[in-house]
């Protein structure tokens, strides 16, 4: 089994450090059932911070669900049993969630092809809504390649996501 842990601890990206942020970390076996657990964890964190209302907690739940689904599908496609790493840094009115897989990476350019809202071509996007949703629901997001996979780092502030996915 490959180890999917990063070599260096701490926030993985070139985003401002969260001073005094508390880290909650989970290794999730790459099975579809565990996405529900990831959702429970991030909703608990959001609910615990009065800056996030119920709608924003719902945004966070959806974005994290999408990221974990992509990570787990990458592992399943590869047929390896390595866990997905979920890390959440929380500080007042900010939650950062990193989902790290070792699934060999994916074709991000193909995945972010914008969905077309017009009928009937809209129906051609039976898949592929996940990454546009993550982009819409986060304040900031980075998709970072590492040696053996992808890490999605999402930062959420208190403002509810508005707007629509579009070209």
């Amino acid at each position: 089994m490959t180890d999917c842990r990063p070599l260096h601890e701490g926030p993985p990206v070139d985003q401002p450090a969260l001073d005094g942020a508390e880290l909650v970390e989970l290794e999730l076996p790459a099975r579809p059932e565990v996405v529900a657990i990831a959702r429970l964890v991030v909703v608990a964190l959001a609910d615990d911070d009065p800056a996030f209302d119920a709608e924003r907690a719902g945004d966070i739940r959806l974005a994290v669900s999408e990221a974990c689904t992509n990570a787990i599908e990458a592992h399943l496609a590869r047929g390896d049993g390595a866990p997905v790493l979920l890390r959440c840094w929380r500080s007042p009115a900010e939650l950062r969630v990193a989902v790290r897989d070792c699934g060999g990476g994916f074709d991000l350019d193909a995945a972010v092809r914008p969905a077309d809202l017009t009928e009937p071509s809209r129906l051609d996007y039976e898949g592929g809504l996940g990454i546009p949703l993550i982009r819409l629901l986060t304040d900031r997001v980075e998709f970072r390649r590492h040696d053996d996979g992808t890490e999605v780092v999402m930062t959420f502030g208190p403002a509810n996501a508005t707007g629509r996915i579009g070209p």
Partner: protein
Amino acid sequence: MDLRIDVTTSGEWSVVQVGGEVDVATAPRLRERLVDLVNHGRHRLVLDLGAVGFIDSTGLGVLIGVLKRIRTVDGSLRLVLVEPHVRKVFEITGLDGVFAIHPTLDDAVGP
């Protein structure tokens, strides 16, 4: 998280009541059930998602697939959406303009 699926009939409509969370773990079962209904000639479907607390893009993919299938047989698919988080997912993806969405089951099986 378990997914509950119950099928009943209301007039000319087959009513599929779904409860729980529709995600990568549960969506395959929903897809299987809906495809099975369409293949057995149930071409007028109401999908009541009133008891669904969560749906993500995997679940939406299932609904889009079923809508396409229903259209190829000149059928009809109506959705009942109640939960605000679920409604929001349809709004931000623009799928509220693609599906016939109703606020209650009575409304969906009406004329």
